[in-house]
């Protein structure tokens, strides 16, 4: 009887550990995925303005590229959060 109770408790703990790992993976996925979407939305507007400005004045290509990649920081924060969750 006691052995059966111990075995059930061990199974519960294993299940909990497994679900914790799963939740972390989902959290990490959401952190990267959602920040990626946010970055995409932000870059859409900046990117179109940057392409428009570069089409008129090629000299500002470098600056325009720099402005376009600024929202990349959002996805990098997401990636950092994901890595902290996983490791």
């Amino acid at each position, binding site marked *: 009887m006691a052995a059966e109770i111990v075995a059930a408790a061990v199974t519960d703990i294993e299940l909990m550990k497994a679900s914790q790992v799963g939740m972390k993976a989902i959290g990490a996925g959401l952190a990267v995925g959602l920040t990626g979407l946010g970055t995409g939305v932000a870059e*859409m507007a900046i990117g179109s303005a940057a392409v428009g400005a570069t089409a008129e004045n090629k000299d500002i290509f470098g600056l325009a590229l720099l402005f376009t990649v600024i929202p990349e920081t959002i996805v990098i924060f997401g990636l950092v959060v994901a890595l902290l969750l996983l490791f």
Partner: protein
Amino acid sequence: MAEMRAGPAPYIYVCTRMRVRKSKLLPKEEYLRMLNMSLPEITRSIEELEYKREIDELSASFHGIDLIEIALSWNLAKEYQAIIAITPGTLKAFTQAYLRRWDIQNILTILRGKRQGLKPGKIKEILIPAGELDRVFLDRLLTEDSPDRIVEALRGKKLYTVVAKEFPSAVQTNSLSRMENELYKDFYRNLISDANAMKGGKQFLAYISLDIDITNIKNLFRLRVDGIEEDAREMMIPGGTFSVEELHRLNGITDLNEFIDALMAKVRVKSLLEVLDKLRGEKPIREIEIDLIRVQIEQMEKMSKMNPFSIHPILVYLEKKKYEVFNLRAIARGRESKLPTDRIKGYLVM
């Protein structure tokens, strides 16, 4: 913001391009510098700007003032056509509708030129094919011998109905002015119906209303200066802040202060109110018109800042580019006629 099927990106792209182009337009200092130049120096100066290709292309066939005028006209037409090509969705439809005013100007120029017996080549020099009627079509009209055939050649175009209706009476009265009025009224009527019919037309409608108001106020001042007792209803454009009846009533006010007070009672644009208030003293009509144009551009700039990804930034650029060409032409013509610098300066929209 206008209709966005593909998201806002194409609108942001084109509005940014217009802003960059606007920043490349000539500053006031450049016009002032040109006022002291001779005609060849002005040509060289223009060649170093956005007009290089046209000057290079035309320098073999034209010289002096003709070269400058034609190069400026060609550049304006090319620029406008290029803008139509890059504007997306409803913005394209609005831009095309706005540019149809050049069709009216071109048709009237051709009809007037033909009636005065000018050579097709001479008429062609002053055409600006920036609207729906392209250079090939206008060339075809220029080859027609009689004005009646020109009117017939317009069949199928937007202008045809009004031109066909008004041209016989224009021939009888020997004046195209009534036809011109009717064409512009029809043009604004079409603009308003286009703006109402299309999604995102609210901003375009705001611009049309401003344009109609400024045009009507300019007409009222012109009528006062002419001092001719005319029925103002014929010349006024409906669709703005003032109804045609109100404008007719305003035209009947003889006292200048009373007239300006009556105008100011209905105007809501702050900068226009300020300018109207300054017009209480006697001023030449040319200066009044320039002041009103400045207010219009200033107000359009404000609208383009409030709606940064709408038709407004495009319209601001189109208007400013038009006045750049007008200014350069005025400087070149003025210098060629040896007019005093101050007099030329009075014609510039800066």
